[in-house]
């Protein structure tokens, strides 16, 4: 009897299972629940309360660093290799050059405040180190590293001249507040590049400290911190910027978290080999604060009405723009770079940097850029761009004398001054990767295709709108593959 009961129960179970399975097969068709963006972010350790560990008092910044290094023994050496401290890249080969060069804020120039050399009083305010005041600065002393600028509460710490702690900072309180870097830590320098809020990047400004979701979906909508994407190990911070990094190493990509075939529409997915995510998802730059689009140094030194956004005697005249439409260009992750001492043709635009890639380059995609145009000083005798002494002693910002500014900076910059200067047009490209708009604001087909005007197809190398003329596999000669 027992054996029979067993069979019957088994039969019943099997029957129910069969019916249940069939039902479940149809019911479980539902799409997976929305994925938690945070699932892609490496979890961070709970912050350690340092208030009991660093009682102070501390006499100087380096004293704080020494205290940090007592426990974090490796951190000092790690930071000595970080570009945040070295301000200089490893040697790289640039196209058309015989020898490798290093690129960094330390030894090159841009077309904003031009160059740090000789201007450490102001420039080094954003150096992750203390008291950089000459070319003899000791880049091998770990105690010169400023731990606090990245790790202290920005309400308790700030930097002043030569990168030293600002007047009135209580170092003990600052040290006790340390933790994982926040948007405010990174933003204290990166939001203020170029000498003020929103000036430089076009996609980084103070609106990102506590951003709304429509400013940046990651930092606003999801409350991401910078270091959630700029993953950091051993103080080597992920990510690079075309202005100081000429190679495609250490890249952060959207596809680190997102599937490249993330769109429902196959036609959108077919764009991802050709179009950077940023191109559609960052439809405008500078969505909140206007950013500097042009800077004309040649008008500096005049007693004109001053306004931070139009004219300053020490800097010249500017044009700011918000919600600007980016410039689009092919970019394969590598860039060309003007290297200090390169000769220029004064009447022509000099590219301080230029994204590399073209329609023929399968690694290149169409990227959005902020293009900053400037008119900046060059040596009329040697035909190279000059780095003036602006913020240093006897610099242009106090004396308004260009000759003195160039002469006094010859040693610091390594650029001999012939005694004659002029102003030359320059251009600099800045990739846009932040201020990612909510998907509802992403570009649509018609923004570029059809009557859309965002992209100049022929300038990009297409025969015409690829919607009608075919994509680049059709355009590139010899590229018959789809």
């Amino acid at each position, binding site marked *: 009897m027992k054996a029979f009961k067993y069979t019957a129960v088994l039969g019943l179970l099997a029957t129910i299972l069969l019916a249940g399975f069939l039902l479940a097969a149809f019911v479980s068709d539902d799409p997976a629940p929305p994925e938690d963006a945070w699932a892609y972010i490496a979890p961070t350790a709970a912050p350690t309360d340092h208030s009991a560990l660093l009682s102070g008092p501390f006499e100087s910044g380096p004293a704080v660093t020494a205290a940090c290094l007592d426990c974090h023994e490796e951190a000092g050496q790690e930071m000595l290799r970080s570009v945040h401290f070295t301000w200089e890249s490893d040697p790289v080969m640039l196209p058309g050059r015989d020898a490798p060069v290093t690129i960094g804020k330390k030894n090159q120039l841009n077309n904003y405040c031009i160059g740090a050399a000789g201007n450490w009083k102001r420039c080094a305010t954003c150096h992750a180190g203390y008291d950089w005041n000459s070319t003899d600065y000791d880049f091998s002393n770990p105690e010169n590293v400023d731990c606090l600028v990245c790790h202290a509460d920005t309400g308790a710490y700030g930097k002043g001249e030569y990168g030293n702690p600002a007047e009135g900072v209580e170092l003990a309180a600052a040290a006790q507040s340390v933790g994982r870097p926040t948007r405010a830590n990174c933003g204290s320098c990166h939001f203020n590049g170029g000498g003020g809020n929103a000036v430089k990047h076009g996609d980084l400004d103070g609106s990102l400290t506590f951003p709304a979701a429509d400013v940046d979906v990651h930092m606003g909508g999801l409350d991401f911190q910078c270091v959630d994407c700029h993953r950091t190990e051993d103080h080597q911070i992920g990510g690079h910027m075309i202005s100081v990094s000429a190679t495609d190493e250490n890249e952060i990509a959207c596809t680190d978290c997102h599937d490249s075939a993330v769109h429902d529409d196959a036609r959108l997915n077919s764009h991802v080999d050709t179009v950077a995510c940023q191109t559609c998802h960052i439809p405008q730059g500078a969505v909140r604060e206007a950013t500097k689009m042009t800077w004309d140094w040649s008008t500096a030194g005049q007693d004109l009405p001053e306004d931070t956004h139009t004219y300053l005697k020490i800097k010249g005249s500017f044009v700011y723009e918000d919600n600007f439409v980016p410039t689009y260009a092919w970019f394969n992750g590598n860039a060309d770079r003007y290297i200090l001492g390169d000769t220029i043709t004064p009447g022509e635009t000099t590219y301080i940097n230029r994204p590399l890639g073209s329609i023929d380059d399968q690694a290149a995609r169409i990227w959005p850029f902020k293009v900053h145009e400037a008119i900046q000083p060059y040596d009329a005798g040697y035909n190279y761009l000059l780095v003036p002494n602006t913020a240093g002693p006897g610099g242009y910002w106090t004396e308004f004398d260009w000759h003195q500014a160039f002469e006094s900076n010859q040693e610091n910059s390594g650029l001999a001054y012939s005694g004659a200067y002029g102003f030359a047009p320059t251009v600099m490209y800045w990739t846009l990767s932040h201020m990612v708009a909510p998907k509802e604001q992403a570009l649509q087909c018609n923004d570029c295709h059809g009557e859309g005007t965002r992209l100049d197809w022929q300038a990009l190398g297409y025969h015409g709108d690829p919607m009608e003329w075919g994509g680049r596999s059709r355009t590139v*000669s010899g590229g018959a593959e789809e």
Partner: protein
Amino acid sequence: MKKNKQTHPPLFYAILALLLLILPAVLVDGGRVWAQEEAPDAATATGSPMHPDFPLLDAAGEHVLAGDRAVSTMTTCGGCHDTTFIASHSFHADVGLSDFGAPGSAGDGLPWDSSPGLFGKWDPLTYRYLSPEGDGRVDLSTPEWIQLFGARHVGGGPAVYSRGGQRLEELAPVTDSPETQYVDPDTGALGPWDWEASGTVEMNCFLCHTGQPNNEARRAALESGDFSWAATATLAGSGLVEAVDGEWRWNAAAFDAQGNVVAGHVEIQDATSANCGACHGLVETVGQEPLTADDLQSADAWRTRTTGQLYSPERLLNSTLNLQDKASLSRPWDIHAERALNCTDCHYSLNNPVYFQQPDAGEPEHLLFDPRRLALGDYVYRPLHEFAKGQSAQGTLAPELDNSLRRCESCHDVEAAHDWLPYRERHTAALSCETCHTPVLYAPAQASVDWTVLGSDGNPMESWRGMASDGVITGYEPALLARENGDGSTSLAPYNLIASWYWVYGEPARPVPLRDLRTAWLEDGAYAPEILDGFDVNGDGGLDEDELRIDTAAREAVVAGRLEGLGLEQPRIRGSVQPYSINHNVATGEWATKECRDCHGPASRVTRPTRLAGYAPGGVTPTLLGDASTQLHGELQVRQDGALYYQPQTAVEEASGLAPLYILGHDSVDMVDWAGLLIFVATVAGASAHAGLRYFAARRHRPQEEALRTVYMYGIYERLWHWLQTVVIFGLLFTGLIIHKPDRFGIFAFRYVVEAHNVLAAILLANAALSAFYHLASGEIQQFLPRPRGFFDRAFAQAKFYVQGIFRGERHPFAKTQQRKLNPLQQVTYFGLLNVLLPLQALTGILMWGAQRWPELTSSLGGLPFLAPLHTLVAWLLAAFIVMHVYLTTTGHTPAGNIRAMITGWDEVESVPQPGEVEGIS
């Protein structure tokens, strides 16, 4: 219409030959010319790169500079293109002229319609009536029609030719003809019209083929009667021509030595959406001035005003319009605009070889593509200006071209995108794509116009839907009407319904001319005293919106009296309902109607009422225009608040002859549900009463102690199929109940439940078929067959046992054995169940499911409105059977004995072993 035979000079042929040599190689409109090393400039919105320089010629073929004459498109463009062919093959030019006839001859429209097009078809929205020959009272004469309707007419057709086919300039000035007369707008007096002086309006190529046609100036020229200068005015602002002291002066500097137009003044291009939008409705393009609500309601934005359609790629949340919940509306106005499609991509020239479609008929079956088609050069010479069109409700013009455009399904694969949709074929057969994919129009659309009363500005009372009184655009859900498709099928499609009321007079009826209506209502710009007496309720000397309504016989008589006073006989109020098709403003699936319960529920989208007007003037219920290729699937009702509604209805037979709709989850026959419920409850009550009686009887009559023994009653397969069927039937009843009344079971996803119901039904059928095979093959089928001889005696004995013996503790009259498990009553019950109820349920179920696969079969057997209630009724009967069935299992030796037997197979039976039984070991 007179067809001019054009003769071409030899030079013309030389130019033409040259062009024909060059053009076919490179002319591109969507042409895919990949492999060229040196690609020509891509065609852009600003001018075709292929178009050669050209001079501007006057009607005589002389250069316009020669005598400061008006430009003639026919000669200018006719230098290369066959403009005579173009103008005579274009319903845009013809607008009904070639079908113009006596009033009422034009088809099923209004009895005073003279043609199916703008020239002759009366529209209650534009009101003015083109008078036919012989009407005593002229409303609009031909020249006035051009002045008024020329704004939305491209020229040619009735603006060049008379109704009899003569050129208008050549008409003899007949005094009583509306073709050569002109009604003085102030006095109403008829006077002659000088066609020689006004000239005619040639088909205006510039209007559609230049980037910035000056439509304002063109319209001004038309309104002022300078017909021949309308094309010239279209070029105003280009630098070619300017108005000096009311005269057009050509700018000689804009022409080169050869007389050609210097580049940069006017770019000839393919017609863009913006060109089409100038007459058809709002089209928004990149960089255009932001829209306002006034733009949406403008009479010029024809399709927008009548339907709320707006062709724009812009996302609604980026719109400058005051849209409700704008931030959540991330969809573009029209997905095709967003995907960079132009009007002409669907409404293409019918002989454009790029878009050319073989007619379906007459093609050999083995041929998929026929490469023999018009050469591009021939097309450019004679581009047919008949454009692919659909079949919109008010578009009665050129019916021979109906549905010549690519339909949704010619480009889209419906199956690939709708694999989630249960009953897909049924849905696609019953619904047009737009029904779900244009769920809401986010712009105001006209709801009614009441010409029976006039505002102090001489205009009618209008009402709008989709816009709140505070100006917030709320959008509206269009009404769903059955559309008669080109292939003979009907499907629900979205429409805006516009109700209109107006006075007509005389016999045969004519709409009261606006001039007379205004005279009846207004005197010197103010309301006539008689009108005020009749309408001014609050006595403030003016009439506000609440007072301006003819809602009493007295008020109707006041206006009718005034009209009669003007010599209009039998003035009376008529009303029309115009359905306006909605085919644009399409949304992707994300925004489409796809929640099952939007339709399959008590408040079904399909039956949602549409408010037509706040009241019905004169108590006149308007009638649907007869030529609208659609019919009302319901009735017009005046509700308690006095407002007039269109209430669609389903599941009812209609005189209209349209197949009635039956929507699962929305429709049900109440009587069936009540009857079914009654049977079910009665069964439960009966079983309970019987059980109660048994309980009390058992306390009085101890059942006789029997010698019981255990036998193997049910084989493993019998038990398996029984319990599988149990589970499935319970599942079917449950899912069926959800589908029947989805509003009561909100937590279940309708579409999964439908799927589950179908799957369960398939299991039931398979299980039934297998067990039928088992019973047949094993001979067990005999169990279920009642034996005819002495059946009634035995059945009676069994019945007597249930009503009597069981309470006395008697033995069952028929011993249960392996060979004879069922008593006679069971046999007859199962016989009925297995031969009637289950097959009936299976059949109705299959037919309901099959409504999508073999709709003809289903409808020939009564269709859903018959099958669905029957299916419901049988479901109730089955449910009642189960109650009875389960209850009767408790009538064995012990209440649970039979159930245990069906689980374990072993049953306890009385008396001596029967031959062949397997005896238990317990």
